């Protein structure tokens, strides 16, 4: 079951991202090739929420601060300088990751792969990237909305039970 769900996780994440952005922000996220998603030298933000159980891993949402400000403004009904407040943006991006992972976690649980979620964490910087250690499977997908990009990385720990 775990192996089967590992294979399906990409589809689950894809559905979760489009559902969360559509529901909370009325944003239509277009699935695009990972290669087309480039943040260049723009300041970035990454929000992450982990899940652990029969299947364990972390889901990261990477985007530019510019898009994160847009997301925050949409979520909180703010504009201008208020939508750029660092604490608001961090919390909003953390909550977006939380909702995406919550969506995925619920589907996993329904398919007999129960897990629990961690609380969100945020990293800011530029040129951010995750180097996966061995025994970790990495899946990447990217989305575009109005010229802004969102890169999603899913790290799944390949535990002994997961390989069975």
């Amino acid at each position, binding site marked *: 079951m775990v192996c089967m769900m590992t294979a399906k996780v990409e589809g689950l994440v894809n559905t979760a991202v489009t559902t969360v952005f559509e529901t909370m922000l009325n944003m239509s996220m277009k699935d695009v090739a990972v290669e087309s998603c480039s943040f260049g030298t723009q300041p970035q933000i990454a929000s992450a929420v982990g899940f652990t159980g029969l299947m364990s891993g972390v889901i990261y949402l990477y985007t530019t601060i510019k898009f994160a400000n847009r997301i925050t403004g949409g979520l909180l009904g703010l504009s201008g300088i208020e939508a750029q407040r660092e604490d608001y943006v961090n*919390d909003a991006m953390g909550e977006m990751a939380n909702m995406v*992972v919550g969506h995925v976690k619920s589907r996993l649980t*329904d398919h007999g792969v129960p897990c629990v979620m961690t609380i969100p964490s945020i990293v800011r910087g530029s040129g951010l990237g995750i180097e996966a250690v061995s025994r970790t499977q990495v899946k990447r997908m990217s989305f575009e909305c109005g010229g802004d990009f969102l890169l999603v990385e899913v790290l799944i720990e390949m535990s002994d039970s997961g390989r069975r």
Partner: protein
Amino acid sequence: MGPKILTVDDSKTIRMIVARAFRTFACEVLEAADGVEGLAIVNREKPDIILLDYTMPVMDGFEMLNKLKSDPETRNIPVVMLTAEAGRDNVLKIARLGVRDYLVKPFKEDLVVERVGRIIDLKAWNEATTKAKRYDDPLQILLVDDKPAILDLIKSGLSDTNWVLNALTQAGQAVDFCSRQMPDAILVSLSLAEGAGFMLFQMMRAAFKTKSIPIFAMSVKTAVEEQQRAQQMGFSAIITKPIDVEDLKAKLARALNLDTSYRYFVQQDGVLLLKLPPNFNPHVSNDITVNLRAKVTESVDAGLGKLLMDMSPLTTADVNLIRLGITVTSLCQELGVKLTMIGSQVVSTECKNYEETKDWQFVNSYEEGLSQLSGASSGAR
């Protein structure tokens, strides 16, 4: 301030979204970042409902819910789980603890309001604070009837008002209409095919946004069973066909609590003028009686101790007029208000025929009335 809503979520974003969702309602939204903070606020503020997240640091939603349910002081506060964690097992686990509802993130703000509105009585700020609408306001009336003759009759009957009649022939169209625009009142025919009128009523009452809209059932006079069912279901009023449009307007005015007093009462020239319209009828008489005490008291409070009752447009003194006159006379005596009546010779003569009204004194014109009230002359008949 209306009901208190407590949102317990470690995400400030969610707490802000919840607060924003209820900003147009007369309620207070309290916030807590975890279960410990949440319980402290519960004990201090006694909220009317709690929106509770599941995964939180310090104390999670499950533990907080357990503590709420084990305390007799708090166990009856309705709790709605608002969490990113769905899944059948989670739902079952939480349902066993007695939550009233369960909302999964992501969510639409409207959905939160809708679900909370099913549990506690929410009123929009404008509904709770603004004064009643006036009869001459452009009210939106939604008519749902597939009979063109009924539409024509009501349309024609409402032509002397500023009310906007939106006519539809099917219940489904009415549901769509209400999702775009909120009517002030709905008139629905019970003879629509397949009980659609009753179904429309149930749908309107089940939805938070439309649950308070007055809904009138229109039914053929002889369809007694249908009318009984409508009464049991809680329709605001039953209008029988053939429709008496004046009766319909009066019932709508009552159901919508419309201010009709300005049509009859006005403070001018140092007196309170009560002007009866040419179409004086039982509905008008009732309208005046309902507002009479408040209007006379208001004028006394404003320093006007004089009432001029103008019956000049009336050509006969019927029982409604006499009843109203007696009520006015009695109230003026009670409040020490000086009263003068303006009336035609015919009305004056007819009033002489009744024991209760034989002593009423009439003047011929507004000017004479003012003069008499100021004590300058006594031209009364």
